[in-house]
């Protein structure tokens, strides 16, 4: 275990560089021994993975779009590709709600499930605002991207980032990545790619910013991402207050029921 707390690390996924090769999906599974997720032909463009799950920790989305401003010399087609992953939220709902402490925040400020602790209560599955974490069949436990926690201990980069042929997936200290990302967006806007925007790079958003953030070319929901995710525990205190009130009301109700005598 690394003693001195290292800087927070993360993923910057620049979808403008993605060629949809899915090396990230395979490299992840090969390193982490993640089983195959079923051989179903989904026909979602070239996406036959569908979504992140207990058995898919990287998922490349493919979106085919007919671009309205198409001229004779422009194909008028856009094929968006984006490799999705656990966001390792600053305020992580899965971690907050995990009752066993199986999910914890590492010294790298990443969010990891401890397979030797998880008892498969499934609370994290319902809590994640991105639908990332899932429960593995015939195993019962919850699984998701660990940002290759074991590799980080050895000073290695995560398997997906290492494999990515075009550096669409970039790994490093989060601050550096955010700086680089903002420059990149500026650069793209200068080149006329006005649709370029960052997703989850902002500490003020509903999850307090994420350890894995993205440069997208369209609205997040087009890639299957929630446009404005909120960590559910943000409202936990107010919910407990509501609970207290209703608890009191229950007491009162029972008291009332007895006050008017036994017959």
């Amino acid at each position: 275990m690394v003693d001195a707390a290292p800087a927070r690390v993360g993923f910057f996924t620049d979808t403008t560089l993605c060629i949809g090769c899915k090396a990230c999906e395979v490299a992840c599974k090969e390193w982490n021994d993640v089983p195959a997720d079923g051989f179903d032909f989904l026909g979602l463009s070239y996406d036959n993975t569908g979504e992140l799950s207990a058995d898919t920790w990287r998922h490349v989305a493919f979106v085919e779009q007919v671009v309205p401003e198409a001229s004779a010399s422009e194909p008028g087609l856009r094929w968006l590709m984006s490799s999705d992953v656990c966001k390792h939220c600053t305020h992580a709902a899965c971690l907050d709600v995990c009752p066993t402490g199986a999910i914890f925040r590492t010294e790298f400020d990443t969010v990891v499930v401890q397979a030797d602790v998880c008892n498969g209560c499934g609370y994290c599955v319902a809590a994640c605002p991105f639908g990332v974490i899932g429960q593995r069949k015939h195993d019962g436990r919850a699984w998701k991207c660990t940002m290759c926690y074991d590799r980080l201990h050895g000073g290695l980069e995560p398997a997906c980032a290492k494999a990515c042929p075009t550096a669409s997936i970039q790994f490093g200290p989060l601050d550096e990545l955010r700086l680089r990302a903002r420059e990149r967006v500026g650069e793209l806007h200068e080149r006329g790619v006005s649709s370029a925007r960052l997703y989850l790079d902002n500490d003020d958003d509903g999850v307090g910013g994420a350890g894995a953030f993205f440069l997208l070319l369209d609205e997040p929901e087009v890639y299957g991402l929630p446009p404005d995710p909120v960590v559910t525990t943000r409202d936990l205190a107010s919910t407990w207050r509501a609970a207290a009130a209703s608890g009191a009301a229950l007491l009162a109700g029972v008291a009332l029921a007895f006050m008017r005598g036994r017959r």
Partner: protein
Amino acid sequence: MTVASERDDLRTYYDRPVLKEPTWRFWIPSYFFVGGAAAGSSLLAAGADAIGDARLGRAARVTALAAIGGGSVALVADLGRPERFHHMLRVFRPSSPMNVGSWLLAAYGPAVGVAALSNLTGRAPVLGRLATWSAAALAPAIATYTGVLVADTAVPAWHEARTVMPALFAAGAAASAGGIAAAVVPDSAPARRLAVGGVAAETALSSALEKLLPDDVGAAYTDGRAARLRRAAMRLSVAGAALCTGGVGTRGGRARRMRTRLGGVAIVLGAVAERFAVVEAGRASARDPRATIGPQRRGIDGSVTGLAAP
């Protein structure tokens, strides 16, 4: 090809869900019911002691013990790794309602047990009384934390209803406990009152919930299986309440007792159906990308912090 759907000008990724469906099986809504029933019964037990109704007192204690016993079994049974149930107390994590609930149960369960055993055996009466009162003290938390638990998720139908959810579960607890007690001890007026009161509150809150939620989220309650379950719950509860109240005032009579017992059972079934309805609604709304994206999109377009704007 079926490019990312833009039906009703809301954009999604091939209409696929953004969220994962809760993995909880029927054990969990069952626990929601029995947990509430136990909590309500613990309160009834204390009340019974207060007015010196031994029959009701015993019935309530036994009910509470049976309910919470069964509830614990249900909780363990739903785990992916049941043999690791004790990990629930591995840490203390206030941010997790399930963890807090586990600690509560760890205190409440034994109290209920001691209260019941001492009552049945007549041994250690002081300890028994102490246990009864502590169980009663914990009961409101036991009755409501499950409401917090479901509300504290990303599931729109639950999270958006967070202000009502604990109250709905509390009302359910009252109805369930009252219903059982009324079925067992039909002569007990407090039991009948609690049952009927619980039904009244539950019905009111349930319709408040519909009004509270935006259409794309509320749809989870008003369409499909959840809607059918809620209709059933409503009919059973109201019918049950009617049966229970029907005989008030008239004296004695086996027929009246029979009606009350029947009413109690109906109310209990109604409470059960209501719990399953809530869980079913949660599943449906997690499946529906519109329930997730719709409110968020409105929030962005309504505010300036639109992180999706280029």
